[in-house]
C-alpha cells in the first residue's frame, strides 16, 4: 500500500477529503483571525482619514475666523465712530420729540385755562347783575314807601322794567 504516486480512485477520494479539510481550515482562519483583524484595520484607516479631514476642516474654520477677527480689529475705530454718530442722532431725535410733546401739553393747558377764565367771567357778571337788581329793588321799595302813593309806585316800577329791557337781563 505505501506509494509515492498513483492515479486511481484512492487519489480522487483523498483529494476530495483534502479539499474539504483545506476549505474548512481556511474558513476557520478567516473567521478567527483574518476577518476581525481586517475589520480593525479598515476601521482604523477610516478613523484616521476622518480625523485628518476633520482637522483640515477645523483648521480652515480657524483661519477663516482669524481673518474675520483681524478685519474686525482693523475696522473697530470706524465702527466706534459710527456707533457714536448713531447715538448722537438718536439723542437729538429724542430731544426734539420731547420738546414737541411739552409744547403740545403747554398749549393744551393754556387753552383750558382760557376757557376756565371765560366761564368764570360769565358767572361773575351774572352774580353782579343779580345783586344790582336786588339792591335796586330794595332801595326803590324803601324810597317809594316813604314818599309815594300806591299808584305812583306802580308807575315807576313799570318804567324801570321797561328801561332795563330784555337784553340787559340777558347780559
Amino acid at each position: 500500500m505505501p506509494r509515492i504516486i498513483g492515479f486511481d480512485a484512492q487519489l480522487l477520494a483523498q483529494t476530495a477529503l483534502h479539499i474539504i479539510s483545506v476549505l474548512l481550515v481556511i474558513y476557520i482562519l478567516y473567521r478567527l483571525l483574518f476577518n476581525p483583524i481586517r475589520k480593525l484595520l479598515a476601521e482604523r484607516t477610516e478613523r484616521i482619514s476622518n480625523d485628518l479631514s476633520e482637522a483640515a476642516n477645523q483648521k480652515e474654520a480657524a483661519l477663516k475666523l482669524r481673518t474675520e477677527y483681524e478685519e474686525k480689529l482693523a475696522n473697530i475705530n470706524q465702527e466706534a465712530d459710527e456707533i457714536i454718530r448713531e447715538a448722537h442722532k438718536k439723542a437729538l431725535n429724542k430731544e426734539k420729540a420731547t420738546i414737541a410733546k411739552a409744547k403740545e401739553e403747554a398749549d393744551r393747558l393754556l387753552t383750558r385755562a382760557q376757557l376756565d377764565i371765560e366761564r368764570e367771567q360769565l358767572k361773575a357778571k351774572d352774580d353782579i347783575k343779580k345783586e344790582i337788581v336786588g339792591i335796586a329793588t330794595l332801595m326803590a321799595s324803601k324810597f317809594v314807601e316813604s314818599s309815594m302813593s300806591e299808584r305812583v309806585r306802580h308807575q315807576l316800577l313799570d318804567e324801570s322794567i321797561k328801561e332795563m329791557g330784555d337784553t340787559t337781563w340777558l347780559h
Partner: protein
Amino acid sequence: MDFSNHVVTTVNLFGFELWITESMVNSWIIMGILVLAAVIIRIILQRRTLQAVPTGLQNVVETIVEMLDNFTVSTMGEKHRNFGPFYGGMFIYILLCNLSGLLPGPKYVESAGYIQFMRPPTADVAVTLALALITFFMTQGYGIKAKGVKNWAKGLTEPMWPLTPLNVIGELANPVSLSFRLFGNILGGTIIMGLYYNLPWFALVGIPAALHIYFDIFAGVLQAFIFVMLSMTFVSSAME
C-alpha cells in the same frame, strides 16, 4: 530508503476502503496547529481587547494580515481585495506544509535515517491536486459569474472555433501543472534530504543545515509563493 506515503489506517466508507495516509495525518496536524494558533492569538487579543493603538502581538498579527492582503491586491488588483483572507489562509497553510519537512514528525514506519523528519503533506499529489482543483473550480466559477455562461463559453472558442479543444486542454492543464509543480519540488527536496541522511556520519556535520535551508526553506517559501500567485492570476484573469 523509503520515500513512500504510508497508510496509517483505513476507513470503510460505504464499502469503499479509504486510506488515511501519512500526508493526510500530517496535514491535519498542521491544520490543528494553525487553528490552535489562531484561537490562542484571538484569546490573547480579545483579553486585552483589540486596541486602537496596537502593541506587541497585535502588531505582528496586523503586519502579517496586511502583508497578505497587500500581496493579494498587488497580484489581483484593488477590486479583488476580498480574496485576501482566502489566499492568505491558503498561503500560510502551504507554507507550513512545505516547512514541515524541518520538524521531527510522528513515526509511522521504521526509518533507516538517523532522524525521522515529518513528511511534508505537499509531497503528496493528493494534497497539491486538492489545492489546484480548488483554484480550478474558483477560476471557472468566478469566470462564469463575472462574464455569464454565454461569454465564458465563447471565450473557449477564441480566437477561432477550431482551437476550442486546445483551449479546453489549456484550462484542464492548469490544475495539473499547478499541482505537479508543487508536488515535484517538495518531493524532490524530501528525496534528496532522505538520500543525504543515509550518507556516513562525517558527511552529516553541518552540511544538512545548508541543504535544509535550500530545499526546505528556500524552495518551500518560493513554491508556496508561486502556487498562490499563479492561483490568484488564474482567478483574476478569468474575471476580466
